[in-house]
Structures are given as C-alpha cells and as structure tokens.
C-alpha cells in the first residue's frame, strides 16, 4: 500500500504575524517554519498504513528552500521518500495552482492513497486536497477522523454540523486529515540522524509546466492586521459574584444588545 503525503510548511502556530514590506504577505523574519499541524496527521496515518500493510510513504512538498527542513522532519519520523518542488512563494494561497503543481508531480507515481491535511495552517483555505483529487481524477473524502483501509476500498468517518458521516470510497482515493485521527509521533534522534543522509528529490516548478508568474487563480490585494480592539469593561467579581453577574447580564442586555 503506497501512500503519498502532501505536506506544506507553515509559520509556527504561536508566531506573531506582521505584515511584510509589500503589504500583501507576512514579514518572514524571525518566523519558525514547521510541518503544518494537519499534515502531521496525514503523515502519521500514512506511516501506520504502511507499517500494517507494507509499501512506502512519499512526502511531497511545494515550497521555497526553507521547506526542506520540514521535509527532513517527515523523513526523520519515518517517511521513505521526499520530493521537494521548488517554488511556491508567488502562489501562496492559490489553491488551484498548488493543486496543479502537486498533480503534475504525483500523477506518474505509484500510489493507493494520497493524504493531505484538511487545511494548511496560515492560508487556511482547505481546498488543495479536493482540487488535487479532481485533477488526478480520484474520489476524495475530506476531514477524516477515522480511517480503515481495506483491499480495494477505504471506510472513513468525519464530523459534520450536528452529526457524523460514515463514508466508503474505492482505492485509489485521496483523503484529508483532521485532528483526532491519530497521535502524530515525534522524530527520534536515530531518525533525525538517518534523515540527514536520505536523498531529497528536487524538482523545479517550471519543469512541471506551471508558470508561477502567469497570474494564477488567486490574486492577493492586501494583507492587514485586525484593528486594535478598544479596552473592554471588566467587572471585579471576587467579592460579590452575584452582583457582578447581574451587572454583566444588564450590560449585555442594554449596552451590547447581545441577549
């Protein structure tokens, strides 16, 4: 059972976001780039599938040079092969172009399942998986919380508003992974040392027939920080909680008109 994991590296979730000089992207100084948290679930699931059923895990990333560190992190956790498509700064957030790049790099490889995180943390689009499935002509299941891989098909479970869905899909399929699917492992020292020696296949994005300068499908006009919020009304409730509660309810009713 061969698995392909699509991984993107993103700013650490605790990063303070500042707007960069062009007013369209973030200021990258001082940012630590990590494996996007949902892609960790995808990688872990792929590792567990191949551990149980044999086969290899290939991690594919599309990103600038700095993405190599995250790719090595995946190798250190146990991925067998790593593919680095160089580029991706100009196309950040452009889900369809990203999907086209990934599809071109994946289509001639052997795989039974393609796994992605349900969204890339930061751009927060949650679209690449579905688009990639479309381009590879695969069925897809998004947001999986439970996954059972059989011989010719998989069964999956996910949450939807106010309920749960159980799905079945023939293989090969693409799935996108949600928190709760598994507990991602960390890289052990041995894995980290081994990962340093594993080869990383490098591909220039232009060689995949995608022109990053062509305008794409998502044009960012500007990036802004939310306006600073005015200080709120804070009531001391340590001594008389009931009075504080009554005052709060009154404010919510009369001033905020929220209840």
């Amino acid at each position, binding site marked *: 059972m061969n698995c392909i994991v699509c991984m993107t590296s993103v700013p650490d979730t605790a990063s303070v976001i500042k707007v960069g000089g062009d007013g369209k992207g973030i200021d990258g100084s001082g940012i630590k780039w990590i494996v996007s948290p949902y892609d960790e679930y995808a990688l872990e699931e792929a590792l567990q599938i191949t551990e149980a059923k044999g086969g290899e895990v290939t991690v594919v990333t599309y990103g600038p040079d700095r993405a190599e560190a995250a790719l090595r992190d995946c190798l250190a956790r146990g991925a067998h092969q790593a593919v680095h498509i160089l580029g991706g700064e100009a196309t950040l957030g452009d889900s369809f172009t990203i999907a086209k790049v990934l599809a071109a790099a994946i289509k001639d490889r052997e795989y039974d399942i393609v796994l992605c995180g349900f969204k890339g943390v930061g751009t927060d689009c949650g679209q690449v998986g579905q688009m990639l499935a479309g381009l590879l002509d695969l069925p*897809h299941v998004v947001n999986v919380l439970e996954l059972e891989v059989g011989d010719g098909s998989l069964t999956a479970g996910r949450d939807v508003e106010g309920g749960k869905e159980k799905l079945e899909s023939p293989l090969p399929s693409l799935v996108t992974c949600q*928190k709760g699917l598994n507990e991602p492992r960390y890289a052990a020292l041995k894995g980290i040392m081994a990962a340093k020696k594993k080869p990383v296949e490098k591909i220039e994005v232009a060689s995949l027939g995608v022109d990053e300068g062509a305008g794409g499908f998502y044009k960012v006009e500007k990036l802004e920080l939310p306006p600073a919020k005015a200080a709120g009304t804070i009531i001391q409730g340590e001594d008389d909680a009931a009075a504080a509660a009554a005052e709060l309810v009154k404010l919510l009713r009369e001033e905020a008109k929220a209840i």
Partner: protein
Amino acid sequence: MAGILVFVEQRKSEIRNASLQALSEAKRQGGAVSAVLPGSGIGEAAAGLGAWGADKIYVADDPNLDLYSSDGYAEVVVKAVEQAQPSAIFFAGTAMGRDLAPTVAARLGVGAIPDAVGLELDGETFSVRRPVYSGKATTTADTAGNTPQIISLRPNVFAAEESAGAGEVVALDGLSLSIRAVVKELLEAEGGELDVAEADVIVAGGRGIKGPENFALIKSLADALGGAVGASRAAVDAGWIEHSHQVGQTGKVVSPSLYVAAGISGAIQHLAGMSSSKVIVAINKDPDAPIFKIADYGIVGDLFDVIPPMVDAIKAL
C-alpha cells in the same frame, strides 16, 4: 453583472440557515440570483427559495442525492452552471460547502476563495476579505480574472433576510451521476445538539472548569442563552468533551454574536478561532489572563460563583 448562482444546502428537506445567508448576500449584490438545490424529495423546499430572493431555482431531485456526496453534488452544480452561466457562485462555508466549492472549482478549471467575511463588487470582480493565520490577519483577494468566481461565505457573518425573487423552479435533468466516495450513514447528534459552527451564541469552557462533570454548568448557561457549548483544546485533550466542540486553530473557527469564555486563558491558538465574534465575554479568576485583552466584557472571579447567578439573571429577563 451576469448573476450569481448560490448552492443551497438542505438536510431532510430543511434548508440550512447558512445557505439562506448566502442567498440573501447574493441578492444584496443587486444582480440576478439563481439557486441550485440537490437532494431527494425536496420539491417544497425548492419552491420556498423564491421568498429568499432566488429568481431561478435549479433542482436535482433524485434518491441518489439524498445524502451528500462530493461527486454527485458537484455534478449537479456544474450542470446548473452550464445553464445559468453565472459570473459568481456562492457557497455557505459549512462542512459541505467547504468540500464542494473547491471540488466544483477543479471541475470548472478555476480557483476558489473560501471563508469570506466581506465582499465588495468592483465592476464584475469581487474583492473578498477573509481571515488568514487563524484570524491574526485579514487578506483581501480576488480570483485573478477567472470566472465563474467561486466564493464560500463564512456562516453567521452575512445576514439572512427575506426578499422576493421570481422563484421559477427548473428541474435539472440529463444527470449521469457517478458517485465514487459515498456517505453510507449520517448519524445525527443526540437531541439535535447545536453545533458551535452554526451557533449564534457560544459558551465555552476550558481547563478552569476542572472536570468533565462541570460542562453541565457551561451547558446551563448555553441553554439559558439558546446557544451551543464550546471548549478549549485543554478541555478536549483532557477528554472532558468531544473534539467537535473545540474552538481554535485546530478546532472550529466561529463568529457568533456572543461568545462567552469561562475558565479559558486565551492562548493565541484559542483566540484564533473566536476573535471575530461580535461580543466577547470572559469569566476568569486571573485578572491578567490574556482573554481579557480581547474581551468586550469580563468578570474577574470564580466561574463556579459567577455562572449560577448569571443563569438566574438571564432567566429573569
């Protein structure tokens, strides 16, 4: 402009409120509005969409469309696009809409913009405002000249308002449904529990509530306000409540009219999921808890002392 097609979502023939919001927003843009509604036994639901501004309603009524499938529903939307030739397609940003919009986009060979919280029309082009970096920043973007412009709208941001449309129902036929990934079962949460992603009021509990049994206290306040129960990751990871209740960077991103955080410190990853709520209330015994920085109202105090009289005061309103 050439008109907006709105994908309308139903469950058991009941139209989702988030879809009515999308329909209403399409109408407010001023052009022709059409709707596409897949499902089974949905004739009556379709006819009702005229009251929400739809001039034309494309209906695909088929037992195979009873439960959602990415393939089946995408096929229906693509068929409707062929007929309506819209310049934009709106989806409600629900679990279904967020899956379907990019699926349809890939079939049409265009991009898609998710999670819109603001729309501005300049000629034929939508400038879409959307939160990124889990709400730490907002970006304004468009589809770079590609049409149709596929946009999904964050639920509870755009108002739903009734308005008259021509309401002409058009049956979509000639569908050749080929559904690969199928939903075998839809298990509804017990008692029709309100989901945080859809709720207009959320009361969330964190590590400060000390144990799973105290979610009953959170729920009593949520019930008094007619809202849903949310949670911080600390409460979810402790196994006190299911992940479907988690708000934040690795949970749900919500923007209710009222968000009450009780016993939640306000870690950056939690704020990421709720900072766009209209009114934020914090209850925390630590006056320096970061949650107070973004709270509109707050009580510094013990939540176990504060919440019961709050419930009483609300009930007395």
